């Protein structure tokens, strides 16, 4: 009897210590869901969701404070993957708040630019190059198309231009399913 109690107590002590140690040793500093959601976001840092960047939005989503359909650059695909990660129902993008648009990239009219550096300070990814009273330019490959530089420009010389689809980033189209005779998805369900 006593041995049993002693043995159980010893085991309890050992596991208690083990648990206590691991809770300190393997302490999770940050909600891991934040990082997961952040990975899914397009990192344009555009703030169209109403949060100052992708990470703050990810934090808000993980905390359940923000709906998952606020990211226009990510579009439906991002919304659906966030829904999968969080295990919630997908909700359609709110077209009034956010609408899916073709991808664009900032372009500075260099003849008009006065070199005020305001846009450089606004760019969240350091994609604008230039210095005081010198013409500025956008590093096209680094621009995320967040439009944060457009509004602050005092001479309105920044334009968002649609990215031309080239051969290099062309994708094969999805085979037409609406061809006559093919049993479309809804029809099959009805049948």
């Amino acid at each position: 009897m006593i041995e049993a109690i002693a043995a159980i107590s010893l085991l309890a002590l050992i596991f208690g210590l083990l648990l206590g140690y691991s809770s300190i040793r393997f302490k999770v500093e940050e909600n891991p869901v934040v990082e997961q959601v952040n990975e899914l976001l397009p990192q344009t840092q555009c703030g169209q969701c109403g949060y100052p960047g992708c990470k703050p939005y990810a934090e808000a989503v993980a905390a359940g404070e923000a709906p998952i359909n606020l990211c226009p650059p990510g579009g439906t695909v991002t919304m659906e993957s966030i829904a999968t990660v969080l295990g919630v129902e997908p909700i359609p993008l709110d077209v009034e708040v956010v609408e899916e648009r073709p991808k664009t990239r900032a372009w500075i009219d260099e003849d008009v630019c006065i070199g005020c550096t305001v846009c450089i300070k606004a760019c969240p990814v350091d994609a604008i190059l230039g210095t005081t009273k010198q013409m500025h330019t956008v590093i096209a490959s680094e621009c995320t198309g967040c439009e944060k530089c457009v509004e602050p420009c005092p001479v309105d010389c920044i334009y968002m231009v649609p990215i031309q689809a080239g051969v290099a980033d062309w994708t094969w189209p999805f085979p037409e399913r609406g061809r006559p005779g093919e049993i479309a998805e809804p029809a099959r369900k009805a049948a």
Partner: protein
Amino acid sequence: MLNIAATDASARKIHPLPGGLHLPDNKHQSSVRPIMQAALPKRLIIPLRQHAGNPAEPLVKAGDPVLKGQKIAQGEGLISAPLHAPSSGVVSAIQSLPAPHPSGLSEPCVVIETDGEERWAELPAPMDYRQANPAAILERVRAAGVVGLGGAAFPASVKLSPRPGDGLHTLIINGAECEPYITCDDLLMRERAAKVLAGIDIIRTLLQVEKTIIGIEDNKIEAIAAMRTARDLAGYEAMEIVVIPTRYPSGGEKQLIYILTGEEIPSGGIPAQIGMVCHNVGTAAAVADAVLEGKPLISRLITITGEGVAEPRNLEALMGSPVADLIAQAGGYTPKANKLILGGPMMGYTLFSDEIPIAKATNCILAASTAEAPDPGPALACIRCGRCAEACPMSLLPQQLYWHSRAKALGKACDYNLFDCIECGCCSHVCPSHIPLVQYFRFAKSEHRREEAEKRKAELAKRRHDARQERLERLEREKKEAMRKKQEAMKAKKTAAGGDAGDAKQAAIAAAAKRAAAKKAERATQGEAPKNTQGLSAAQQRQIDEAEARRAQARKTAHSEDRARPAAATESPPQD
């Protein structure tokens, strides 16, 4: 065909391909006529992206005269290739024009108006590849813009430079040409076997391989005979010419290696991983031209065939020749012409216009009649018959890939080895429901690549954003630190100089008060009262008296408060 195989002394064991198809080869239409030199087109349109990798950077501008064989664009980066003027003339423009690409999109092209003189630029001297430094030969091949002419257009020099640790032992030469209708490799081997073999010998010397195996399908009897004769004449006994059964797609790199050696390339890998390299016969001939004659890759053999042309044949055409010009030289269109396909019927793609130029990778123009390229009809539901899986030469499960690709579940499709699909089209060909399976796989592959590219872009943006945040925080910290230091320095200065300054001030005040008191006393002794107290009216006097009384009262209360204060609070300088 058994007798052909039997004539080779070293009868190599043939490993039959899993899957694959027997297709009506339709090669005789174009192979009965000899190779013809195509006439010089008036205008050559040279796309800057004719090869796998980065597009070339133009070295000429509009208005520049160019000579035949002159370099007009240089390769950008390691995986790229330079371009040369196919004929002499004047560059009329560098502009975006429809390119030979399934998208039909425009690509930057150099447009040359030919002058018909065919004046050659100065070419590098022929090399003796047996004596020359391998690096010099490689450089020559690279500078000649040689790319894989089998279809992928991968820069040949990259595949010709063995990396240490590869342990290459076998060179596979692809003369299978399994796709129906195409005969340009067949004709090349028939008519220019010696050049092909010389090229193979150069490649063999560069790669330092032990074995060289040339695989040719058994439907090219004349080509096999020509190659054997040329080999025996040149004394390349070590080159093994192996006749393989005609079965589509035996000309795929992975398929040919399997047929000839029985070895498989790991999923997602390249032949070098199992010590092999595969080159096309056309590439070998281009290498021979570059090394032995100094000629850059400015022309290639191209099959113009199908019921839609009057005289199907092979042409030696300059790169950049418009398709319409080449069709005209094959007798022009027939009334049956219905559809233009660039490449073969299985893997080629439909052209939207015949204004499009040919590029280094273009091996065939098929002007197909309705019977040759019938509309597959409407796609029906998949009945899971499994014929696609039987036909797949990569032993994949096309029906599973189909469901996942159709549902756009790209991750799942990748789990079923989507990227091992060689897009040969066997599955679509056998599908009784006419499902465009290979279209789904092409869509899924390119979509997955796009998603990956986007992910990389997001990752880059995140890194840049994080770096910026860190920098801003650091600057803020530094600013605060600097401010704090400055404040501290000022405070220190104040306390250092502060004690003395305060004392001096106090001393000055005391001295002034003393002086004033002395003056007042002196005046008083002289009987002078302050002028503002002279001649006061009764009312004024009364006001003064009242003020004095108030002042005295205030002093009294202040004193009593002072005494009531705790000792600690009286550290401040004493008043009065």
